[in-house]
């Protein structure tokens, strides 16, 4: 039946592309999560009135974040070509997409992290200080756990954005479903390939959203 409805779809290739999309998404989500939290924490802690108040560092990070957040992803990929080639020795394949994906998404997520941290009750931070907690303890025992639901829902939004970034990256040479839809579907006029690739991407997005929502809800005891 599948043969009949989607005569041009090579299911093996489709599966391979799906795995590549999942791979790119997974690696870049993990890296974005870590990098975004570090950047977000620095943004938050160096802001005026906070523990590590520092105008210069705050300005530098904020500028970096704002610039990279504002560059359209497709242009970012092109701008990063020399960097990617230097780092990955190639512009093709799933790995080649990773630098651009992470550089594009981490600043975006860092802002969400900063906003989430600002929502943490100042009184709770103060209570921890009054108990003799040091900065590190305040970060990992208070700031991160108390903002975790927002951090998770933020990474969910970011992960979904990353899925569509992988598709764009696919068009300029990285693998995955976007690449397949463009090369096999669009350029060879096989609309059924494009359609199947789209459906799979939608499924990935839905599943990510559901997982994110479930985790967020189970973490939130407020």
């Amino acid at each position, binding site marked *: 039946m599948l043969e009949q409805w989607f005569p041009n779809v090579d299911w093996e290739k489709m599966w391979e592309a799906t795995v590549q999309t999942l791979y790119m998404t997974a690696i870049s989500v993990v890296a974005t999560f870590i990098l975004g939290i570090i950047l977000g924490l620095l943004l938050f802690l160096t802001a005026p009135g906070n523990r590590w108040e520092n105008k210069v560092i705050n300005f530098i990070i904020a500028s970096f974040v704002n610039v990279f957040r504002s560059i359209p992803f497709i242009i970012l990929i092109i701008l990063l070509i020399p960097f990617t080639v230097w780092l990955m020795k190639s512009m093709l394949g799933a790995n080649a997409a990773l630098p651009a994906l992470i550089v594009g998404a981490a600043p975006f997520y860092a802002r969400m992290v900063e906003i989430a941290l600002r929502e943490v009750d100042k009184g709770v931070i103060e209570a921890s200080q*009054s108990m*003799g907690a040091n900065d590190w303890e305040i970060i990992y025992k208070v700031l991160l756990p108390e903002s975790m639901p927002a951090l998770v829902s933020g990474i969910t939004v970011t992960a979904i954005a990353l899925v569509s970034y992988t598709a764009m990256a696919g068009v300029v040479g990285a693998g995955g479903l976007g690449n397949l839809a463009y090369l096999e579907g669009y350029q060879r006029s096989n609309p059924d390939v494009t359609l199947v690739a789209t459906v799979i991407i939608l499924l990935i997005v839905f599943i990510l959203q559901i997982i994110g929502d479930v985790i967020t809800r189970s973490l939130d005891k407020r």
Partner: protein
Amino acid sequence: MITLKGLHKTFNAKSGVVKAVDDVNIEIEKGEIFGIIGYSGAGKSTLIRMLNLLERPTDGTVSIDGMDLSRLKGKELRKARQEISMVFQHFNLLWSRTVKENIAFPLEIAGVSSTERKKRVDELVKLVGLEGRENAYPSQLSGGQKQRVGIARALANNPKVLLCDEATSALDPKTTDSILDLLVDINKQLGLTIVLITHEMHVIRKICHRVAVMENGRIVEQGHVLEVFQNPKEDITRDFVNQLADPGDIHKTLDHLAEEYPEGKVVNLTFVQESAEKPLISDVLRKFAVDINILQGKISQTQEGAYGKLSVLLQGEEKDIQEAIAYMESHHVGVEVIQNA
């Protein structure tokens, strides 16, 4: 135990320089419950926050148990803070942790081993009466229960001093009383020194041994609770004391009565300690040719004895009334004549 010397704190706010705390000198004894009362904005929170250096004094010294706190920094300061706990108006619990985990928090910071932690948490849960709620999250607790967690958490590392910043101001009157009872229990059982700030005279009356009245960053009056109640020197103190005796509009009613009985005198009597327990009224009736109508009265217990207020209508010859008043004054009863309007 706690000595505050020449303590100042100024803030450079956008609107100008704010002298939040202005030359405060207080000596607090070991094991006492010391209250600081004042209206909102008086500088109470700023003052109490300097006792654990959450706020650094602009000038002056804070010493606790002979140690000059204002000199400490970094690690030493964090260590010292484990002995000076704080309870907050809005509880400031971690919502992401259960009751048990919240109480364990300061123990984790102090580096207590996990088996020790468990044991100590169980003791504390019992001490504050939260058995059965150990695994609840703060959002599942009532205000009073949350404050019990706050208190248990504050006691975890066996502090020398407990600081309470409006610990009952977010609670209803009944819950307030149960929390105050708990604080008195802890003070007696553990011999803990407690410093609390409040804007409610009721709190001072119920649990404090000594009180300081704060206005515009300065301590305008301080002393033993009963002395201050009996003989308030400043207007603001009198306002606070009256807030306690008068549930609202009684003064108006008394003025009204003064008008209604022009031949008599409406008099407010203040009894303290022994005088509250002597048969003064029957003495007066026997000794002087006056009639006494009791209009209203109230006796409250403080940590240092009874304190009573009685409003009476004295009727009779002017001379007899004057003699009766003099007699009562000579028996350590505060007498305030309400003037006819």
